[in-house]
């Protein structure tokens, strides 16, 4: 299970994540692809996300601001309407009293029966009044009409009496008073013909006023009520305290003739507060109309919208991140692969350059050796000539033998330098007729001594006799030398190397190079023709030998395959065409030859 998961993870991992091949590092343009990948994702993601998040933020602020101002406006309108209604309610009743004192004589008013008539008429016309009384300048109640028996009381020390005497009109706050029932007093002062005055006082039922205020209540989040200037609640409030208690939330209310709205907050969150000081044209009143809305409740719709927007933005961010990651991974991987291909090519080019310079060196050495070699050859030859032709030392077998061995050594040197020259030429493509037997024994010359020393048996077998093919001598030499070298490196003392060449059909020849050396693990076989793959210890092989070999075979329109078993040996099989169509054929043939 975990194995499966790991293999999937490995599949998802981009190529550049794996460690680079150490020896290719100097050829890479960029060293740290993980860093490029991370920086790329960061830059792309920031470029895409910053505008999105900024715009969303600005949008959010704008909407919040407009929602706030909309809420304030609505609250202000509501407060204003309610204020007008409350003001009108009080003003109407004050005007009724003013009309009464101007219209009806004092003497008639002090007549209880008449006063009762007046009370009834006012109740009919306006409603909301419970009693009427006439007060003398000394504060004594002169006449009373109403349900309470409070005749003969003296009000000279009462606040309302003092205020009304001073200001001509009076509107009280809601209070219980002597009768222990919440009520409002309104009073009007009037002058008589003898320049003395009297006060007509009426008691208002609070129920009508409360109904008027409550009728403006909209929704469960809005609370509308009256307070006096000290903040004592006058009409029922839903959330901010009971009647005659101090209001729980009280922002600093500055007096203003106009309706005001403010934002305030208490422990339960933000609130929109609208307030208006109630004042009639003829008298000031102690009332302040309060409209308090819970912002959170009012924001419900907007919050739903914001939550949808947030979800959408979150999904967008996710999508952008995924796309950015995939794109970045893809691009960086492409870049890495291109860079890797370039690095491999560069490494190969360098390797080839090294091989080329080795070839040039070999050619130079061969040329330089050839001259003294030729001199040795001729000198020794001359000595031999002296012996043979002059017949002076004709019978001296030992001398002849020694001279022959000099000549043989020279011949061998000549053959080696000749081969070195052959390698120097391997970079040109020259197709010529090649004798397979000859070229194989040329190659084996390099290994004769080693084979003898390590007791390795080398067997060359051509069951159908010698084969001639048309090919490039240098390249074929290099191919065979590489494979024979590999075989010798894989073999221990006493091993055996078989080189078999056979025709295959009319057009091709199969050369098999088979050793019974250490072999290779089977799972490495598909990779051995890849550049820089080596089963040898690090530093021993370049990992290029078989890659170059397989490249050369392809150039010669051939094919190579391998079979190997650990500890049992390796068999390389090369198939080459017998006839090669090549424009650059070497037609020159020298006579004689070496």
């Amino acid at each position, binding site marked *: 299970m975990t194995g499966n998961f790991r293999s999937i993870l490995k599949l998802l991992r981009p190529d550049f994540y794996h460690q680079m091949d150490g020896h290719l590092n100097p050829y890479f343009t960029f060293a740290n692809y993980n860093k490029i990948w991370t920086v790329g994702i960061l830059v792309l993601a920031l470029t895409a996300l910053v505008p999105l998040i900024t715009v969303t933020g600005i949008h959010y602020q704008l909407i919040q601001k407009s929602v706030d101002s909309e809420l304030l406006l609505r609250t202000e309108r509501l407060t204003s309407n309610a204020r007008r209604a409350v003001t009108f309610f009080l003003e109407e009743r004050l005007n009724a009293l003013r009309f009464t004192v101007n219209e009806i004589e004092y003497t008639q008013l002090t007549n209880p029966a008449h006063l009762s008539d007046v009370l009834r008429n006012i109740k009919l016309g306006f409603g909301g009044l419970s009693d009427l009384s006439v007060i003398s300048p000394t504060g004594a109640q002169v006449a009373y009409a109403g349900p309470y028996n409070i005749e003969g009381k003296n009000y000279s020390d009462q606040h309302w009496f003092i205020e009304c005497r001073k200001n001509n009109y009076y509107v009280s706050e809601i209070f219980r008073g002597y009768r222990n029932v919440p009520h409002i007093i309104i009073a009007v002062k009037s002058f008589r013909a003898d320049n003395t005055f009297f006060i007509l006082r009426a008691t208002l039922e609070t129920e009508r006023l409360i109904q008027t205020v409550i009728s403006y209540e909209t929704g469960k989040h809005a609370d509308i009520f009256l307070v006096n200037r000290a903040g004592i609640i006058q009409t029922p409030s839903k959330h901010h305290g009971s009647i005659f208690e101090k209001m729980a939330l009280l922002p600093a209310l500055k007096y203003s003739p106009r309706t005001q709205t403010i934002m305030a907050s208490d422990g339960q969150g933000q609130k929109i507060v609208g307030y208006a000081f109630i004042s009639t044209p003829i008298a000031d009143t102690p009332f302040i109309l309060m409209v308090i809305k819970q912002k959170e409740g009012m924001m419900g719709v907007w919050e739903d919208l914001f939550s949808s927007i947030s979800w959408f933005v979150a999904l967008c961010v996710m999508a952008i991140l995924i796309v950015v990651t995939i794109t970045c991974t893809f691009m960086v991987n492409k870049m890495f692969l291109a860079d890797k291909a370039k690095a491999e090519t560069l490494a190969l080019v360098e390797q080839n350059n090294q091989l080329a310079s080795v070839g040039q060196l070999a050619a130079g050495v061969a040329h330089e050796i050839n001259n003294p*070699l030729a*001199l040795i050859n*001729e000198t020794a*030859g001359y000595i031999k*000539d002296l012996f043979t032709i002059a017949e002076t030392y004709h019978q001296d077998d030992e001398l002849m033998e020694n001279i022959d061995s000099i000549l043989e050594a020279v011949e061998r040197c000549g053959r080696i330098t000749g081969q070195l020259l052959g390698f120097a030429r391997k970079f040109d493509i020259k197709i010529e007729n090649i004798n397979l037997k000859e070229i194989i024994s040329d190659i084996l010359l390099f290994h004769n001594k080693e084979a003898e020393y390590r007791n390795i048996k080398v067997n060359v077998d051509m069951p159908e006799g010698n084969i001639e093919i048309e090919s490039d001598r240098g390249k074929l030499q290099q191919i065979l030398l590489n494979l024979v070298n590999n075989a010798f490196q894989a073999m221990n003392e006493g091993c055996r190397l078989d080189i078999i060449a056979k025709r295959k059909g009319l057009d091709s020849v199969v050369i098999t190079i088979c050793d019974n050396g250490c072999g290779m693990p089977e799972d490495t076989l598909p990779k051995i023709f890849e550049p820089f793959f080596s089963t040898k210890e690090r530093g021993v092989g370049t990992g290029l030998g078989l890659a170059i070999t397989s490249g050369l075979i392809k150039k010669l329109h051939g094919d190579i395959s391998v079979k190997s078993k650990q500890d049992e040996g390796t068999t390389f099989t090369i198939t080459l065409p017998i006839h090669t169509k090549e424009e650059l054929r070497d037609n020159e043939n*020298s006579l004689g030859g070496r």
Partner: protein
Amino acid sequence: MTHYNILIVDDEKRYANMLAKRLNLRGCVCEVCYSGKQALEIIKHKQFFLTLLDLRLPDIYGTEVLARMKACCAGMPVIILTAHGTQEDRQECLRKGAYAFMHKPLGIEALMLILARIRGMSA
């Protein structure tokens, strides 16, 4: 055995002399010179059966000497005998009419074989 008249052109004096001695022993008459100019001068006055020509001469490069020799004595075979010959040199020499292109060191028997072949052709 017919006395072959051979010109050896090589700046390696000891090599040239030694080769001349060996050919003398085999019945040839050899003349040795160590530069291209010298060789071209000699063949103006004397006819040779064969010339053995090195490529790296101090004054004129061998291919050029070969071309001039072929210009004045077209019938005389010239064998290039060099330690340095590249594939290009080989092709150029054969194109310019060299009879053979041989690498040093060269066994005396191989040389004698070529002589025999030339004689066979000229006979």
